[in-house]
């Protein structure tokens, strides 16, 4: 059998024959109705895109920025805002991380955890599948090069009932009773293109939805971010007018908010939420300067609504100050920040009782504790260690 014969015969093994194709095509509308019903009846999963990202020096600032930026309304500065403003001043005055020599990376380790809810597809025999809680904990390590590229390594820990990840025996029993529906909270990463995330991600399996967002974190630096003004009032106005694009470049005039939010209703300019989204994206860029980060801090610290809880410690034993902020009606944000260094130590989002009372919802909890950023001599190298395989 020659090569051409082999190629042709491999093709002949395809189980999708013409009849199967016709059958598939005939089912398309039915399939869409089923999928549309599942989408319509399922809970919209919350997005916490900024809570589990910590890949650079400025990323420490990013989550704080997000959280504070989400505050609605316009009331006088709270104690928390004052605390953050002070942190911003300290951050602006502090030295940046040492520059990276060739082959060096900024390394950061973070403890991450999430409680995620999922349910099977609605069917005629089971139109209202129950929600099931799934827990994931692990470590997220990032190596960011001076060019902004880098690597993310996720290492899940066994958790839940007998290491299964199910939050309770009842959750596990429900999953089995419902025919072991697909666990959306325990899936591998469907995004493979490094151009979409700026760096490689390994060890994703098991981290589910929340960390899929983290895995998409843009490690690649924006080209124009440090050309932005560092005067907070100017920066605030530009953000409100929608003049700052997500890569840090500046539009020549006010425009529709470039945050990409499909829910935007304004023809020009950004809402507070959209500003927060933009600022968070900017702060995630590894080469954004501490000075810019400080200015963004300050813009956000002018937004009221936060409450100062008091001293708190993160998973690494680092002391800081805890601040809470409601994220709309259903979620509460907790942030631990070192007000001396300006470093973000911990973030957590928990659902409120109002959220739990909603149909098709279960409480969610997403938490990340951030370690200190250090310089290492290669991707995959941990501080004080040799190159790991």
């Amino acid at each position, binding site marked *: *059998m020659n090569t051409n014969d082999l190629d042709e015969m491999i093709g*002949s093994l395809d189980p999708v024959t013409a009849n199967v194709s016709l059958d598939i095509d005939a089912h398309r509308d039915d*399939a*869409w109705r089923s999928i549309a019903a599942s989408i319509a009846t399922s809970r919209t999963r919350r*997005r916490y895109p900024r809570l589990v990202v910590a890949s650079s020096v400025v990323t420490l600032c990013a989550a704080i920025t997000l959280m504070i930026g989400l505050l609605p309304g316009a009331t006088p500065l709270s104690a928390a805002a004052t605390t953050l403003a002070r942190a911003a001043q300290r951050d602006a005055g502090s030295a940046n991380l040492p520059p990276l020599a060739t082959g060096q990376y900024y390394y950061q380790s973070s403890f991450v955890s999430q409680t995620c809810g999922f349910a099977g597809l609605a069917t005629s025999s089971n139109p209202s599948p129950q929600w099931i809680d799934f827990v994931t904990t692990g470590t997220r390590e990032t190596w960011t090069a001076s060019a902004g590229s880098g690597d993310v390594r996720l290492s899940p820990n066994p958790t839940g009932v007998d290491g299964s990840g199910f939050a309770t025996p009842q959750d596990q029993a429900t999953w089995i009773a419902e025919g072991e529906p697909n666990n959306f909270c325990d899936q591998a990463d*469907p995004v*493979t293109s490094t151009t979409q995330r700026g760096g490689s991600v390994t060890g994703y399996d098991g981290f589910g939805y929340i960390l899929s967002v983290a895995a998409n974190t843009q490690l690649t630096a924006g080209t124009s971010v440090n050309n932005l003004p560092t005067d907070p009032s100017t920066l605030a106005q530009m953000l409100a007018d929608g003049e700052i694009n997500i890569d840090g470049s500046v539009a020549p005039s006010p425009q529709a908010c470039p945050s990409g939010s499909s829910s935007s209703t304004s023809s020009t300019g950004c809402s507070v939420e959209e500003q927060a*989204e933009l600022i968070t994206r900017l702060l995630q860029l590894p080469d954004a300067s501490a000075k810019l980060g400080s200015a963004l801090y300050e813009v956000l610290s002018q937004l009221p609504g936060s409450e100062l809880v008091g001293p708190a410690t993160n998973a690494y034993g680092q002391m800081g100050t805890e601040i809470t902020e409601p994220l709309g009606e259903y979620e509460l944000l907790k942030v631990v920040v070192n007000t001396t260094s300006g470093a973000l130590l911990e973030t957590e989002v928990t659902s409120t009782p109002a959220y739990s009372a909603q149909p098709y919802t279960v409480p969610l909890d997403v938490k990340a504790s951030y370690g200190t950023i250090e310089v290492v001599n290669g991707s995959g190298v941990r501080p004080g260690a040799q190159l790991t395989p």
Partner: protein
Amino acid sequence: MKSPRPDPLAFERLFREHYASVARYVARRLPRESLDDVVAATFVVAWRKFDVVEGPNLLWLYRIAGYEVAHERRRLARHPQREILGDLELTDSHPLEEVIDLAFAFSQLSEEDADLLRMIHWEQLERSDVAELLGCTVNTLNVRYHRAKERLATAIRQPRKVGEHPQEMKEQP
């Protein structure tokens, strides 16, 4: 914070454009009875990530479908089933015995080799697309592809025991 929802019309366009390809992809890898659920699960996952991923396309859907297929295989592994080979489309140029030998040899390949051949010969993807799906360079893919075909050719030459039939050779992984 606003929770931007994906654009349902855009998502429906994605579905209508790629449903058949995704369904064929799944049908080539799982028993018929798993097809509807796995295809539906693939698109539900796609919906949940539709506003996160830039430029959702067929390759992205294949990637999701690949994980859903693996998940379904793990589930099926608890209740082993026989390998499903569809109806063979025979041509005049190859006798039945040759096709059966090939089917048997194909069933002996590793899943990695088999899936690579499926993607190139059945999904008829470009080499560059397959390389992206597998996370390797085109050169690496070419090497892997030719080695897979070599292993297939070698397996064809291996004598088969009397009575062995490809559909009885291998349980679902």
